[in-house]
């Protein structure tokens, strides 16, 4: 029995004696998760009837051709196009040296929620792997500009400690902040933003305003 035949058998029948083939623990866990998802009612749900009619009606109201993006989106798109080019080159190199990528999209998104210090704040951190480190686009909303004498500092935290990944103030209004990290999300899974005073102390104030930490 091959690994794929084992997976087919597992998806169909669940765990049972399958002869000499034995998957590793990670594959067995993943197969169990997949089988569970096959039974998830949400996975079988259909969108409401008539929804497509609403979509086409909206398109008709907006005109016969797609609208042009606004300036900020064009700017972001231009940056992403450059990065996509770099990613494409890296991907081509990876193929040459025989690396096979088997999992989903190249970027990772992390959602951050505001704490009691900034309950209206939220953010999405879009992490892109580059040869120099992680490029992070932090799209922040609901976080007020830091007052004079204060600033915001972003951190990645893990069992080995905390690494500062950039500072910002948002005095030009909400938007996307560019951060860089030399450490990985796998090793430093918590991303936080703290409010800091300009007092020359490089340590974190502990005043967390945004975090992805959850139970």
């Amino acid at each position, binding site marked *: 029995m091959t690994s794929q035949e084992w997976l087919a058998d597992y998806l169909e029948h669940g765990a049972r004696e399958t002869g000499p083939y034995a998957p590793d623990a990670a594959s067995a866990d993943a197969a169990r998760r997949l089988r569970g998802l096959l039974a998830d009612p949400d996975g079988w749900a259909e969108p409401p009837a008539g929804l497509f009619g609403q979509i086409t009606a909206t398109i008709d109201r907006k005109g016969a051709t797609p609208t042009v993006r606004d300036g900020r989106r064009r700017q972001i798109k231009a940056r992403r196009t450059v990065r996509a080019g770099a990613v494409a080159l890296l991907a081509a190199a990876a193929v040459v040296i025989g690396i096979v990528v088997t999992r989903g999209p190249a970027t990772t998104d992390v959602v951050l929620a505001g704490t009691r210090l900034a309950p209206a704040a939220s953010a999405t951190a879009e992490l892109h792997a580059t040869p120099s480190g992680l490029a992070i686009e932090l799209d922040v909303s609901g976080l007020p500009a830091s007052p004079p004498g204060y600033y915001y500092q972003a951190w990645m935290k893990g069992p080995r400690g905390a690494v500062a990944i950039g500072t910002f103030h948002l005095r030009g209004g909400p938007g996307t902040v560019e951060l860089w990290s030399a450490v990985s999300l796998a090793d430093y899974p918590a991303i936080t933003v703290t409010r800091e005073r300009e007092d020359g102390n490089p340590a974190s104030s502990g005043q967390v305003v945004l975090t992805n*930490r959850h139970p």
Partner: protein
Amino acid sequence: MDEDDLADAFRTGSAEGVRAVYERYSGAVFAIALRVLGDRDLAADAVQVTFLNAWRACGTLEPGRPLAPWLFTIARRAAIDLYRRRDRGPEPVEPADDATITLPPSMDSIWEAWQIRIALDMLPAEEREVVRAQHFAGLTHAQIAQQLAMPIGTVKSRSHRAHRRLASMLGHLAEVAA
């Protein structure tokens, strides 16, 4: 229509292109929206936003770029945007406290849900019907045969073929070498 033709049709922004993409992917978009939002009405809103945003951006879908991951990115973002806009749920906690902050499902789990739904939608209708009865309704092969009024041997062979197809399409998610 294969994926390249579908992408070409969609790239024109025509109603036919939008309809074809909707017919193929609306189930997957709805499934991941429901997974993120847990609410059918909000998930329907996310589907609508997804297809409108995709239509607006259809000119940015470069020739040769796969349509499904591109649409997945738009759909996930639409669902998470709606998630962030709705009521925030539990009271935010003290900064030093790592306790409850409600967050949407992880990128990996949304991606899994997307791929599973697409794989299910790619099964032939008669095989999909058997898989649905087995996993969604929790029926045995004998019960499925009775419900669908067909010989149990037919149910077993359809189930066997369907699960082999699913294993082929989803093997990479289980990190099983195909």
